[in-house]
């Protein structure tokens, strides 16, 4: 059968068409199913993508949050770093400033290196001088003439004068008050992007100001800048105050020292004069005494011859007169001898013969020697020199005279039945103290200072009746001093006296 005829068979053709339609339909259905699945997948992917995009955007938003927070953290960290670094440097500077007592040096300490360490680029410091104008003390980053002009510029700003110098407040170029016009001009003149100006305070208010500034426009001022500059300026003020006080104290001390030196010079001159006078006096006394002693010896000699009756027996009245001449001659001789001794010791002409002297033996000897007058007055004599008291280094004869004079006086001024004590002790390892005490009439306080003066005699009943030269205690004083000892007296009227002197241990 012709295939064409077969196709032309309507039934067959219909069957073929139906089959093809079926296939197409199935294909369409399958395609639709695939498409639906694909669409679904696409939708899922789109949803995933949208989710991812959203997450991505959210992450980006979080990143924004992170950087904003981080920026603030950096700001806080910078501020903290600045504060810590500033405090460390400030502490160092404070130490430098407080150990400086020279005004110029205080300002020199704030040199470029220190200002740089504080984190600033330039500095200007000025203080009032005596005439009321301002003197530049710190100029870092400025030539001297430029700095002086800038100080004038600063102090010409009423706002700064009022706020900083008047009210002692700190001022920053970033302070937003009525500074809009003035500050930019000042900043330009200073060559700075920002600055802090703080008063240099003293008790009576600000004496000047300290300006520290940044050149970099990218360094912003903060409150810590104000605190830092304020504290530094206060430290300068304190250091200046200290320097001023030190200067005043130093000057006062210098004045005092000058006065002392002047007074010492005057006293030395006076002492020299006194010594010269004293020497002249000693020389005079010595000369006069020598001149007096020669004729006195003759008088005494002749008087003795006459009194002895070698020139014939004298009538009683003449004999009595001759004996008086003899006695007065003895007194005069004693006076002259004392004067000569004093003059010799005072002038250093008397050479002492030092030796080891046993005080106990000396006192015992003295007791024997003065026993008669003491016995006459019923005076008890006591020696209290323990064996452990060492020997003294002294001129035996001169120390004998010291004892005789002091104990002799004690006998003289102690009423009958009284007591005289000679005691000694070791005052320190090198010195022996000797004390002569009596229960005599005592010495009035105003006489105590004078009894060692030459020819001074206390005005009392005993002296009025008894003879004396007024040279005994003077001689004692010279002898003790010639032994490098000290002599003192204490007394109470009616209760006796204590004469104390020291001698070096042998």
């Amino acid at each position, binding site marked *: 059968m012709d295939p064409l005829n077969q196709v032309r068979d309507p039934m067959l053709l219909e069957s073929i068409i139906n089959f093809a339609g079926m296939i197409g339909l199935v294909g369409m259905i399958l395609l639709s199913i695939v498409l639906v699945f694909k669409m679904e997948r696409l939708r899922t992917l789109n949803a995933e993508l949208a989710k991812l995009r959203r997450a991505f955007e959210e992450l980006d938003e979080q990143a924004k949050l992170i*950087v904003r927070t981080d*920026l603030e953290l950096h700001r806080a960290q*910078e501020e903290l770093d600045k504060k810590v670094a500033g405090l460390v440097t400030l502490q160092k500077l404070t130490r430098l400033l407080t150990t400086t007592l020279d005004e110029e040096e205080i300002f020199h300490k704030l040199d*470029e290196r220190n200002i740089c360490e504080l984190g600033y680029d330039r500095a200007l410091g000025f203080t009032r001088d005596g005439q009321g104008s301002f003197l530049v003390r710190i100029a870092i980053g400025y030539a001297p003439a430029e700095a002086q002009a800038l100080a004038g510029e600063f102090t010409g700003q009423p706002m700064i004068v009022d706020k900083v110098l008047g009210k002692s407040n700190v001022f920053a170029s970033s302070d937003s008050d009525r500074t809009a016009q003035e500050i930019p001009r000042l900043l330009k003149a200073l060559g700075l992007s920002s600055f802090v100006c703080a008063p240099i305070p003293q008790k009576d208010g600000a004496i000047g100001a300290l300006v520290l500034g940044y*050149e970099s426009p990218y360094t912003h001022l903060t409150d810590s800048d104000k605190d830092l500059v304020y504290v530094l300026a206060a430290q300068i003020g304190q250091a200046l105050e200290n320097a001023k006080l030190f200067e005043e104290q130093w000057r006062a001390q210098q004045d005092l020292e000058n006065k002392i030196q002047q007074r010492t010079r005057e006293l030395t001159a006076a002492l020299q004069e006194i010594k010269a006078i004293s020497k002249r006096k000693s020389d005079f006394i010595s000369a006069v005494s020598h001149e007096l002693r020669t004729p006195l010896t003759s008088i005494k000699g002749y008087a003795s011859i006459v009194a002895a009756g070698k020139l014939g027996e004298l009538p009683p009245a003449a004999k009595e007169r001759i004996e008086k001449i003899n006695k007065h001659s003895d007194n005069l001789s004693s006076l002259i001898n004392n004067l000569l001794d004093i003059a010799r010791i005072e002038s250093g002409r008397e050479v002492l013969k030092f030796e080891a002297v046993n005080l106990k033996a000396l006192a015992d000897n003295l007791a024997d020697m003065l026993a008669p007058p003491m016995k006459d007055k019923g005076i008890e004599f006591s020696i209290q020199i323990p064996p452990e008291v060492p020997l003294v280094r002294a001129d035996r004869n001169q120390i004998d005279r010291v004892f005789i004079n002091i104990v002799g006086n004690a006998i003289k001024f102690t009423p009958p039945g009284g007591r005289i004590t000679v005691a000694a002790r070791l005052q320190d390892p090198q010195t022996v103290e000797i004390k002569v005490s009596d229960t005599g009439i005592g010495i009035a306080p105003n006489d105590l200072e004078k009894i060692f003066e030459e020819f001074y005699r206390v005005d009392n009943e005993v002296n009025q009746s008894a003879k004396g030269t007024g040279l005994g205690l003077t001689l004692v004083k010279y002898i003790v001093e010639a032994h490098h000892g000290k002599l003192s007296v204490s007394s109470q009227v009616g209760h006796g006296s204590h004469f104390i002197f020291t001698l070096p241990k042998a």
Partner: protein
Amino acid sequence: MSILIGIGTSNKKDPFAAASEAANFALHQIHHKEITLALLFSTIHFADKRLLEGITYNLGRVPVLGCTGANLITSKGITNYGVGLMLFSCPGKLRLGCAASHNIHLQNARDAGKEFADLALHNLGGTQRDLALIFPDGLIENGSEFLRGIKEAFGLSFPIFGGSSADNLRFHRTFQYFNGQLLSQSIVGAVFAGDNLFGIGLRHGWKPLGRPHLITEAKGNVIKKIEDKPAVSIYEEYFGKTLAEIKKDLIRISIYYPLGIYVAGEAEYLLRNALRIDDDGGLVCQGDAAQGSDARLMMGTKDWALEAATEAAKEARAGLEGKTIKGALIFESISRHKLLGRLTERELLRIKEVLGNIPIIGIGTFGEQAPLKALERHGETYFHNETIAILAIGEPHGSA
């Protein structure tokens, strides 16, 4: 003869006295031997002719290179006020050709770079060369452009190492030292030839934050548009601040949050500081940023910065391939010191832990120059921001 390296420092107020003190310290350490090179660095306070006069007076006419820094780094510590001098005595081991190109702001930066490099090569003579050390003015707006000129002369893969001079963050004027001359707006440096004595380490430690942003329009160092919006919008959006606020705080924000440009094959992003904002909202950066690349906002922490210093030191040490380390130069972005704050000294300790107690000198810079390591970059030198670059100097064991 062994390489001798000595350092001297001073903070004497008078620049001449400071130079003298530093010179005498350093001379003592090299036993007064012949000086091959003197590297002189100081903070801005000492940028004075008398500083160089002091150096010449004490050392005679020796090659002097250096510049001012935002701070001074030496083995003794980091200071904001001082002078540091490193003396090299290595006759016969190191040859150098020094050069300076002046007034680079007045000429095309690329031409200035080329002029510098040609002159250095001419002064070096011969064909062998190992490394170039450069100190360009840190206030040049596009640090990549003069580098391009230098690379034209030296070749793309030639290692260039350096630090951009800085001032006390005033961004007003920086200085370069070249023999007896006190220069500004110049580039000074030298090209060295020797026994491959150098190892370079480079790291910053900043990490990306947030999503990538496509740079849709850029020209040289100006990123004009990011995702078809003015580039500054990236900062506006992230910090939630107005344009005026961003303008006011840009340097600060940019120091803490630089932009990172993805560099294929590199361990870290290439960082860019924005210096200012153009009228059209474009960000003017210190170095190039290519159109079509992804920019990320970067964030740093003290720990990451310290870790980066350790890594950079290790990398520099590894670059010496076992040689004895004799000394090191550190050029480190001042931004890092802002981030580290009082921990800055700790960073130096980290470096010394790796390199040992050797003479170290360097400065806080306004930009760093060092080669990238990735194979795709063929060792090409790039301009960096916020980075610590360490150059270790060594010599083979047993050298005498």
